[in-house]
């Protein structure tokens, strides 16, 4: 048995579902499960903590058992739900199947709880940015907030722009996506107390994630428009 969350469900045959799980010990897995009966319909909804067991070593696993660890009504609602759907789409897009990421699993679980606890704009945006930065670190694409691409320490008084795969490069205050140096040290401390810092963090994570996401944009971004 291990902890897991459903990321996505789609019908497979008349009586079977194809379910993408994010599991604690095996990372992303895709499994075939029986379509639940009337009483268990809530089981395969995303954002609910589950315990599951599966068999098979190929790409497609067979679900042996799957239980909700605690019954909670829709864990996410409204704007938080949009954020949750975004996170799920992001994970499905960038993670390789069957590669374990236990620290990311606990981070994800914490993020879902945080989205549920406080659906304010400030909170949901900080949760998304922290998760994106953690995800980048876990995948080996962590952003270096201490030094610029030439190896110089970041100066809090200067301005920088970010290039995925390269790092921060000093630039003038007026250039398009110039980010103040003191924002970089705040983001490094995950201090998102200011809307302006959140905006800078979004510019950085978007740029850093874009090579991993690929050409097809994430559909869930349309929900926020």
């Amino acid at each position: 048995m291990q902890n897991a969350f459903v990321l996505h469900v789609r019908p497979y045959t008349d009586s079977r579902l194809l379910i993408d799980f994010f599991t604690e010990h095996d990372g992303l897995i895709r499994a075939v499960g029986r379509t639940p009966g009337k009483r268990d319909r809530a089981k395969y909804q995303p954002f609910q903590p589950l315990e599951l067991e599966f068999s098979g070593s190929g790409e497609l696993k067979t679900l042996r058992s799957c239980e909700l660890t605690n019954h909670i009504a829709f864990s996410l609602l409204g704007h938080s739900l949009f954020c949750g759907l975004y996170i799920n789409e992001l994970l499905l897009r960038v993670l390789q199947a069957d590669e374990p990421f236990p620290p990311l699993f606990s981070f994800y679980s914490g993020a879902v709880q945080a989205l549920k606890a406080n659906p304010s704009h400030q909170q949901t945006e900080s949760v998304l940015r922290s998760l994106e930065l953690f995800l980048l670190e876990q995948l080996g694409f962590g952003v270096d907030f201490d030094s610029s691409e030439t190896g110089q320490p970041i100066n809090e008084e200067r301005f920088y722009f970010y290039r995925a795969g390269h790092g921060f490069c000093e630039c003038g205050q007026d250039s398009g996506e110039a980010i103040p140096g003191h924002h970089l040290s705040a983001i490094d401390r995950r201090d998102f107390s200011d809307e302006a810092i959140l905006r800078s963090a979004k510019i950085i994570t978007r740029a850093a994630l874009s090579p991993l996401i690929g050409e097809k944009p994430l559909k869930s971004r349309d929900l926020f428009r």
Partner: protein
Amino acid sequence: MLSPLIDHLIRSLRILPGVGPKSAQRMALYLLERNREGALALAQAITNAAEHVKHCVSCRTLTEQNQCSICANPRRDASLLCVVESPADIFALEQSASFNGKYFVLHGRLSPIDGIGPAELGMDKLLERLNGVTEVIVATNPTMEGEATAHYIAEKAKQRGIKVTRIAHGVPIGGELEYIDGGTLAHALASRREL
């Protein structure tokens, strides 16, 4: 070995949901051996429906007319609009005989991972349809994607100053509390009413 015509019929029947090779064979043999007349009537009905049924111009449900009978009915309240996921939901709500407004069919729900966003669902058509409506009742299914769809519609309708309501989720008639899942009970409690 089956002759090509029978084989073709069996394969054609298998496109139906829940019909496997055995059931398809049983259906084909029944139609050919026991009920030729019924078979011809069925073939005719399928041809007619498949050729002529299209989407209603105002609510997008299935109909062979330009406008479905509900949309064309002047006695139905045009200021109430109920948004549903599929035409089957309209049939269900109509059977309850408790709604006298009009409908709008989304033909799906927001599901970004499947590539279905607001544009794919035709949300712009729904927003056009909101002219003259005073209350939108969102009757999407109580799934995570149904809730996301409801929230999206609610946000857009509120921007236009239209009242938005969501159908209640709760305990079915004749049900017993001890057998109802925790999620439904929590919903039922949260939306309790004073007696």
